């Protein structure tokens, strides 16, 4: 693996994270972060969809007419999402029920389209596949971090298992109900960005 490929793989995880730096794909990400399990399944689905659709579009890149490329890309992405959705419905029905429409919304997740437009249309299939996978992973990382905090503070559980021991509740501790409500996802994401930009000063906006 040469340095270039390593850069493709590692950059989207932290330095060029699709959510906190490029501001792509926030749409469907926040509603699924109440529970870690849902967030993890969503993250895996997005990794698969971004990787495979970047790969396929990159294979087709020399034959797609420029005028109608958006529709072609959407059809490719929609096909991948249908595959993921059908697999989830078959093997993890309860998770697929809790994620409801958000699996379908991966189609319009800006990360997928963004990476296709910015990378896959101008690069060979294998680097495009890696770029898609890495961006999906960067997205998944943020999702899992936010879901971890929300589930821990909101319900006192991790993956549905009780981690805050009973004696703390007996001493008067109460779960923070605010964490389960949708707006807290946004505020937490704001805090994640705050932390990241305090570490990486070059990302700060003027």
């Amino acid at each position, binding site marked *: 693996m040469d340095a270039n490929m390593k850069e493709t793989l590692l950059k989207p995880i932290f330095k060029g994270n699709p959510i*906190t730096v490029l*501001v*792509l*794909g*926030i*749409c*469907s*990400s*926040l*509603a699924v972060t109440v529970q870690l399990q849902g967030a993890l399944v969503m993250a895996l689905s997005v990794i698969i969809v971004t990787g495979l659709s970047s790969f396929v579009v990159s294979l087709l890149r020399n034959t797609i007419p420029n005028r109608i490329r*958006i*529709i072609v890309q*959407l*059809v490719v992405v*929609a*096909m991948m*999402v*249908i595959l993921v*959705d*059908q697999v989830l419905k078959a093997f993890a029905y309860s998770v697929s029920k809790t994620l*409801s*429409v958000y699996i*379908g*919304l991966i*189609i*319009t*997740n*800006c990360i997928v*389209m963004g990476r296709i437009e910015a990378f896959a249309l101008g690069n060979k299939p294998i680097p495009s596949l890696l770029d898609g996978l890495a961006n999906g992973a960067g997205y998944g990382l943020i999702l899992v971090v936010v879901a971890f905090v929300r589930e821990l503070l909101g319900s006192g559980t991790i993956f549905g298992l009780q981690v805050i021991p009973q004696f703390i509740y007996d001493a008067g501790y109460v779960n923070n109900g605010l964490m389960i*409500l*949708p*707006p*807290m*996802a*946004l*505020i937490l*994401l*704001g*805090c994640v*960005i*705050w*932390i*990241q*930009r*305090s570490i990486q*000063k070059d990302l*700060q*906006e*003027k």
Partner: protein
Amino acid sequence: MEYLSLFVKSIFVDNMIFAYFLGMCSYLAVSKNVKTANGLGVAVIFVLLVTLPINYLLNKYLLQPGALAWLGDKYASLDLSFLSYIVFIAVIAAIVQVVEMVVEKFAPALYSSLGIFLPLIAVNCAILGGSLFMQERAFANVGESAVYALGSGIGWYLAIVALAAIREKTAYSNVPAPLKGLGITFITVGLMGIAFMTFMGIKL
């Protein structure tokens, strides 16, 4: 009366942005000033209002289990609902393209103000989300789906114009450097979401 309650509910209680986070990408990217936010908001209302009834009819007569019964008994047992994503997104992308051409031909003034936003809208989650929610909630007729489209479009419009107005003001305030720009915007949207939650108790 049912229409009115659905309308109010889809604007305030089930607000696309604050309750479901739909259309966040363009919401954050295009809310730097009120004028462009206004343009995008109007375009979203318009596209939602056109695509949702069409998708409703497609869902009713093509996609949902047993929908093909009008073709004859042989087709009554077919279930094409797994195709719905691809059909909905194709309809949306096609309609956006058609709307763009029509607006360009017949209303050049509107086109020059909306022009850049129209192609963006094809990948706005609020549009596809509207169609998917419409499918999930099984509305009774086309009228209801149109009212739902109008309501959620207006809700989205209100949210983006409000955020743009706030961001125009916060541009002058003294925000900690790492929070500037994106960070403070997220927190603002979160606080607006908490404010919108006060509508949750409304029963109509």
